[in-house]
C-alpha cells in the first residue's frame, strides 16, 4: 500500500509539474519530491525499528515488508501480478533514490533555465520508475519500470545536455536497450525451460535455483549461457569494463542533476539487478564463475582508476572513478561471504551518496566558474569556502577515509573478498589489486584538488567569482551529513542488509 | 458432358491471358480489361463446376463476381478519369511523382 502510494503520488506529481508554468516548476517539483522522500525515510525508520523484513525478499517470503500483490495479467500461461515489497537490500536503495531525487531537483534550480516544467516532470517520472525498479517483485512489473527509466533519461540528456548531447543520448539509449534485450533473451531462455506458472521474482528464484535437466548447447549448460547473457545485460548499466563506454559521454553531457541521478541511482540499478537475478537466482552458476567475474570487477577497478588519472575534466574524473568504485561492488558480490556481499550492497548506497555529492559539488563549481577543466582554475578555496570544504570532504570520502560511508563499504568488501571461498587461492591477489585501486583514486583526487582548490586564485572571468547560493550548498550539506552518518554508524543499514543477504551467503549475519 | 479438366484448362488460359495483359500493357484501361478477363476466368470455373458438382453455389457466386466486377470498373474508371485529368495520360507508368 505504502509503495503504491509512493508511486501514485510521484506520478501525479510529475504530471502536475509538467502542467505548471516554468517559473514555479522547480519549487513545485521540490515540494512534490519531498513527499516520497519523507515517506520513504519514515518507511526506513519503521523498517529499521520494527525490522519488518528479516530476510531476503526473493528467498524467504517473510522477508517482504510493505508487500502488496494484485493479480494483473494472465498471459501465455504465466500469471503476472502487481507485486511489490521491500527487504534489507531494496529499502536503503529506495530511500537513497527518493532522497537523492529531491536533492537533485533542488540542485537543478540554478543550472536548468529552459523548458523547466518538462525537466522537473521528467525527473519525477524517472523517480517513479526508479522506485518501481527497487520495489517490484514481479518480473514484468520490474521490467516495465526498468525500461521506463530509460525514456525520461533519454530526454533529460538529449534535451538539456551539453554540446554533444544528441550523440550521448542516443548512445546511452541504444546501449541500454540492446542490453535489456540481451538480458531479456537470457532470462526467458530459462523461463521457457522451467515449468514456471508465475513470473513473480520469488517464484522465478525458487524455480531457477532448483532447476534441473536444463538443455545444453555445445556442452555449456543453459544456466551458464543465461547467466552470461543476463550479466552482460546488467553490466552495461553498472557499468563494467569493457561495456562502460556510454558512461563518460552520458555523464559529461548530462546536466548536473541528471548526472547526479545517473551516478547515484542508475548505476545501482545494474548492481541491484545483478544481486537480485544473477547472484540470487543463479547462485550456483555465480559461484562457479566467481573468479572470472572477480577479474572483470578488478579490471574495471584498475582500468577506471587509470582512466580517471588521465582526465583533465573534473566530471570525467568522477565518472571514471565511479566505474572503478562499481568494480568493488562486483568483487564484493562474487565473494559470497556475508561481509563481501553486505559490503557490496552497502557500497551501493554509500557510493550513491558520495558520487552524487561529488557530481553536485562539481556542478556547483561549474555553475560559478563555467569550466570543469582542472587546468583552468586554481585556488577556489578562498572564493567559495563552503563548496570547497564540502568538495574536500566528499573527495576524502571517496578515497575511503574512515568515518565516511565509503570507508565502511570498501573495507567490508576487502574483508569479505579476502577470505572468499569462491575465489579460492586467487582471493588475496585480486583483493590486493583492488586495494591498489584506492591508491590511484587517492592519487588523482588529491592531485585534482590541489590543482583546483588551493594555491592562489586564478580564473579568467569577466565577473566576480563569489560563494554559491544557499540553495546550491544546502543539498551538498545534507548529502555530506548523510555520508558521515552512514560512516559513523554503518549499522543504520548494514544490519538490514545482512538480514537480507544472509540466505544467500548461507552464513548468518 | 464435357469433362471438367477442359473447363479448367480454358479458365486457366483466360486467366493467364489476363495476367499477361497486366504484365505487358501500360494503358490503365487495358489493365482494367485484363483484370476483367481474370475475373471471368474465375466465373468459368464457378459455372462449370457448379454443373459438375450439381449445386448452385458456383452460379450464384459468379453472379456476385459479375456485380463486383462492374462496381470495380465503376470505381476504376473514375480513378482513371482523375488520373487523366492530373497527368493527361492513362499510362500507369507515367504517374511517378510521389510527393506532395
Amino acid at each position, binding site marked *: 500500500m505504502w509503495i503504491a502510494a509512493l508511486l501514485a503520488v510521484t506520478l501525479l506529481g510529475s504530471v502536475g509539474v509538467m502542467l505548471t508554468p516554468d517559473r514555479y516548476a522547480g519549487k513545485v517539483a521540490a515540494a512534490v519530491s519531498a513527499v516520497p522522500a519523507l515517506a520513504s525515510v519514515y518507511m526506513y525508520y519503521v523498517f529499521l525499528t520494527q525490522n519488518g523484513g528479516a530476510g531476503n525478499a526473493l528467498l524467504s517470503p517473510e522477508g517482504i515488508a510493505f508487500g502488496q500483490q494484485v493479480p494483473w495479467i494472465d498471459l501465455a500461461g504465466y500469471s503476472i501480478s502487481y507485486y511489490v515489497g521491500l527487504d534489507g537490500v531494496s529499502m536503503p536503495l529506495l530511500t537513497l533514490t527518493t532522497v537523492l531525487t529531491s536533492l537533485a531537483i533542488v540542485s537543478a534550480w540554478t543550472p536548468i533555465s529552459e523548458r523547466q516544467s518538462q525537466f522537473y516532470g521528467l525527473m519525477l517520472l524517472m523517480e517513479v520508475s526508479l522506485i518501481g525498479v527497487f520495489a517490484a517483485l514481479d518480473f514484468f512489473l520490474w521490467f516495465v519500470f526498468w525500461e521506463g527509466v530509460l525514456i525520461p533519461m533519454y530526454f533529460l540528456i538529449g534535451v538539456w545536455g551539453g554540446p554533444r548531447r544528441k550523440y550521448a543520448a542516443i548512445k546511452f539509449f541504444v546501449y541500454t536497450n540492446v542490453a535489456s534485450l540481451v538480458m531479456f533473451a537470457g532470462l526467458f531462455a530459462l523461463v521457457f525451460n522451467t515449468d514456471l506458472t508465475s513470473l513473480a521474482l520469488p517464484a522465478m528464484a525458487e524455480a531457477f535455483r532448483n532447476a534441473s535437466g536444463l538443455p545444453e548447447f555445445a556442452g555449456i549448460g543453459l544456466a551458464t549461457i543465461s547467466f552470461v547473457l543476463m550479466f552482460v545485460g546488467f553490466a552495461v548499466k553498472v557499468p563494467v569494463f569493457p561495456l562502460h563506454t556510454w558512461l563518460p559521454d552520458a555523464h559529461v553531457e548530462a546536466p548536473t542533476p541528471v548526472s547526479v541521478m545517473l551516478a547515484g541511482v542508475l548505476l545501482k540499478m545494474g548492481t541491484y539487478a545483478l544481486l537480485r537475478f544473477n547472484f540470487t537466482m543463479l547462485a550456483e552458476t555465480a559461484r562457479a564463475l566467481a573468479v572470472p567475474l572477480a577479474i572483470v570487477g578488478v579490471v574495471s577497478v584498475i582500468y577506471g582508476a587509470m582512466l580517471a588519472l588521465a582526465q583533465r575534466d573534473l566530471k570525467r574524473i568522477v565518472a571514471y572513478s565511479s566505474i572503478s568504485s562499481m568494480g568493488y561492488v562486483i568483487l564484493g558480490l562474487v565473494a559470497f561471504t556475508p561481509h563481501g556481499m553486505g559490503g557490496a550492497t552497502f557500497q551501493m548506497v554509500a557510493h550513491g551518496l558520495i558520487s552524487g555529492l561529488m557530481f553536485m559539488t562539481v556542478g556547483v563549481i561549474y555553475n560559478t566558474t563555467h569550466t570543469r577543466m582542472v587546468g583552468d582554475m586554481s585556488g577556489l578555496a578562498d572564493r567559495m569556502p563552503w563548496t570547497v570544504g564540502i568538495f574536500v570532504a566528499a573527495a576524502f570520502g571517496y578515497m575511503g577515509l574512515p568515518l565516511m560511508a565509503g570507508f565502511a563499504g570498501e573495507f567490508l568488501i576487502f574483508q569479505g573478498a579476502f577470505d572468499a571461498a569462491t575465489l579460492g587461492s586467487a582471493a588475496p591477489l585480486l583483493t590486493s589489486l583492488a586495494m591498489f585501486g584506492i591508491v590511484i583514486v587517492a592519487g588523482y583526487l588529491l592531485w585534482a584538488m590541489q590543482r583546483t582548490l588551493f594555491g592562489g586564485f586564478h580564473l579568467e572571468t569577466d565577473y566576480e567569482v563569489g560563494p554559491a547560493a544557499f540553495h546550491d550548498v544546502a543539498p551538498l550539506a545534507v548529502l555530506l551529513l548523510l555520508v558521515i552518518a552512514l560512516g559513523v554508524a554503518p549499522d543504520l543499514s548494514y544490519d538490514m542488509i545482512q538480514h537480507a543477504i544472509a540466505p544467500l551467503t548461507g552464513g548468518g549475519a | 458432358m464435357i469433362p471438367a479438366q477442359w473447363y479448367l484448362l480454358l479458365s486457366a488460359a483466360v486467366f493467364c491471358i489476363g495476367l499477361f495483359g497486366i504484365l505487358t500493357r501500360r494503358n490503365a484501361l487495358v489493365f482494367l480489361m485484363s483484370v476483367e478477363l481474370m475475373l471471368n476466368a474465375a466465373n468459368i470455373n464457378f459455372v462449370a463446376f457448379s454443373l459438375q458438382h450439381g449445386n448452385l453455389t458456383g452460379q450464384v457466386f459468379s*453472379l456476385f463476381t459479375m*456485380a463486383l466486377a*462492374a462496381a470495380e*470498373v*465503376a470505381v476504376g*474508371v473514375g480513378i482513371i478519369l482523375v488520373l487523366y485529368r492530373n497527368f493527361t495520360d492513362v499510362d500507369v507508368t507515367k504517374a511517378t511523382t510521389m510527393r506532395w
Partner: protein
Amino acid sequence: MSNPWIAIGALAVVGLAIPVSMMTVSSLIRPRVPEQGKTATYESGEVPTGSSQEIKFNIQYYMVALLFVVFDIETVLIFPWTVIYRDAVGAVGMSKILLPMVAFIGVLVVGLGWAWRNGAVRWVRSPRATKGADTYE
C-alpha cells in the same frame, strides 16, 4: 427436347448470312467512281475541320454510363429473385422473401437519390454552364 441452342446458333448463321449475301450482291452490281471530294466527311457542305476523335464531349456521358453499369448489374441480381418469387411466397411466406429485396432496392434508391441530388443525372452540368464549385469536367 433437343438442345435449343442449336436452333439459336442456326438463326445466328442465317442472321449473318442474309446481310453478307446482300453485301456481296451489292458489291457485284454497284459502280465504283473514285473521285476526290466525295470521300470528305459530311459537315453540312462546309470543309471538314479537324477529326472527330479529339472533340471533347460532355462528361455526363461518363456519369450516365457509370450509373448504368452499376444499376444494370443490379438487375442481374434481381432476376433470379423474380423467378423464384412466386414459389417462395408459398414456401417461406411473403415477408421473408419480400423484405430482403425491399432492403436491397432501398439501398439502390438511396444511391440513386444521392446521385440525383448531386447532379449525376442532370444534364446541363458542363463547365461553361456552371463555372465554379464541383463541376464534373
